[in-house]
């Protein structure tokens, strides 16, 4: 018999929810049926890739009403007896999944990053612990469905089928008044913080005159520019993008240090940077000791060359 998997579908995260099909695939191969549950959808026709769609239309049910959404999902569980419930770890998903797990009396593994399916059918869910310093392999040995949450973008839907799901009727039986209400919802201004950027293109004294050009490289790499104290002190950049003891502590995956000397005060602001490329005319500068790649030479020239190359590559694709 095919395994049944339930996916909680948030419309504005559609593609990420679809990616969760890959989790099911890694657990059960092709031997599963996928059910997406969506509440008050604007347009069911854009939902694809799943076998079935449980579309609930009930204007009393708000998208933040966790108590009643939990009841709805528990009722669905009763009817369909899912083997796995997979929730995207969004703000909503992170609140919903533990509540549902408690309602169903099952364990929950949050933010999994990998799945191992053992020959005996055991599903091992792997997740980071201690701020990513360790990975833990976890099994669920209670009764009821295997429940997990997955951060957006961790798994990628490899098959990406455009399968049109069969819509199944679904209605919440009893709704209770939680007394909670949303008073306002404002879209956040798109001001990004260098602490949240995966790639930082940072400049120091060596690019004082050409600091403006760093932005092109940052854009080509989908990152942000950051600055050393030298740059901020010379009024070439705002203190909000300064890295270091008197600025911000950042933890990008890639840090490109352009003409940065690397005094300890600067380096103190680099926390768990995965890759560092240092460009400096002085390869004895302390920053170079931390780099995966040291480029000996003028940093501004490097920025121009690398930006051109990346953009050429993009056009060629």
């Amino acid at each position, binding site marked *: 018999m095919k395994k049944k998997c339930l996916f909680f579908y948030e419309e504005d995260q559609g593609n990420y929810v679809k990616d969760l099909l890959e989790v099911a695939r890694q657990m059960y191969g092709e031997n599963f049926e996928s059910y997406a549950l969506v509440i008050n959808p604007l347009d069911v026709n854009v939902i694809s890739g799943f076998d079935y769609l449980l579309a609930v239309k009930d204007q009393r049910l708000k998208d*933040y009403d966790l108590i009643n959404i939990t009841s709805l999902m528990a009722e669905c569980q009763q009817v369909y007896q899912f083997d796995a419930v997979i929730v995207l770890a969004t703000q909503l998903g992170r609140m919903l999944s*533990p509540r549902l797990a408690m309602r169903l009396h099952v364990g*929950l593994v949050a933010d999994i990053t990998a799945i191992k399916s053992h020959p005996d059918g055991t599903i091992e869910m792997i997740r980071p*612990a201690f701020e990513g310093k*360790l990975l833990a392999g976890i099994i669920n*040995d209670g009764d009821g469905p295997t429940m997990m949450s997955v951060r957006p973008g961790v798994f990628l839907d490899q098959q990406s089928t455009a399968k049109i799901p069969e819509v199944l009727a679904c209605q919440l039986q009893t709704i209770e008044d939680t007394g909670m209400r949303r008073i306002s919802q404002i879209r956040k201004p798109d001001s990004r913080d260098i602490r949240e950027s995966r790639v930082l293109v940072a400049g120091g004294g060596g690019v004082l005159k050409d600091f403006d050009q760093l932005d092109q490289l940052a854009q080509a790499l989908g990152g942000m520019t950051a600055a050393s104290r030298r740059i901020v002190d010379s009024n070439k950049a705002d203190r909000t993008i300064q890295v270091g003891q008197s600025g911000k502590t950042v933890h990008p995956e890639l840090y490109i240090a352009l003409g940065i000397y690397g005094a300890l005060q600067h380096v103190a602001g680099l926390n768990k940077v995965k890759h560092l490329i240092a460009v400096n005319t002085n390869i004895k500068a302390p920053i170079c000791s931390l780099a995966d790649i040291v480029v000996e030479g003028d940093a501004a020239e490097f920025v121009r060359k690398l930006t051109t190359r990346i953009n050429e590559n993009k056009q060629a694709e």
Partner: protein
Amino acid sequence: MKIICLVKFTPDVDQFQYDYEKNILIRENVKLVINPDDACALGFALGLKKKTPEVVIEAVTMGPLNVTAMMADILRRKVDLATILSDRQYVGSDTYATSRIIGKYLETADYDVILTGSHSRDGDTAQIPGQLAEYLKLNQISQIRKIDQPSMLNKRALVEVDSEKYLETYEIPLPAILSVGRESNYRLPFVRYDDLDLDVSDRLRIIDNDSLAVDSKKIGLKGSPTKVIKSYPIDYQKKEQVIVKNDDQGIDMVMAFLEKEGYL
């Protein structure tokens, strides 16, 4: 008004050392610290108490008895009561079992609101508040960055939430579980110099399972539906450094690196 703050003590992750030869993370002898989000929640409660002295704050934690000194420190920061749920049988409880233990205590406790952190630093999870809310049948909301003080006293809390794309304001009738995020910047005050040795033993309670009486089949390792079967060290490798010139060859090298590591 009575506030219960749930706190957890977690190892100070930054202090972990890595043994490159054995490829293991050294977790021993690392200091325990109060979970940062929980500290923000406590910080908010203490701020409210400072303005409204009739507010009574109880800090509740579950853990081994070596957290006693840290709970005493919390009392020296002007929290009124501290409760430690501690029993050898609790060791190894997953979040499900833990929620049931804490939930059992809270069922009988007196409170107008429960404050927690959003996120726990050691497990990178955010499960206990949601699970507890379900256990206690309360509303719960995470990632709070601001709580309106007067609304708390009026029993209909106005909270500002930082969801990924929006800033939202909710009204939530109390009692409820309000989970505060680090972005709130509510700061837990430190113990003042003059209070460093304050005797707080009369305000600190330790409750074991003889008095709490949670079904012993539902607690500890055996009462936990999820089990860690294996831990995988992350493969840290010491870096091999390459030095290149700022010429075509050098740019090729950098491009290849960016490609290989998935930055392009």
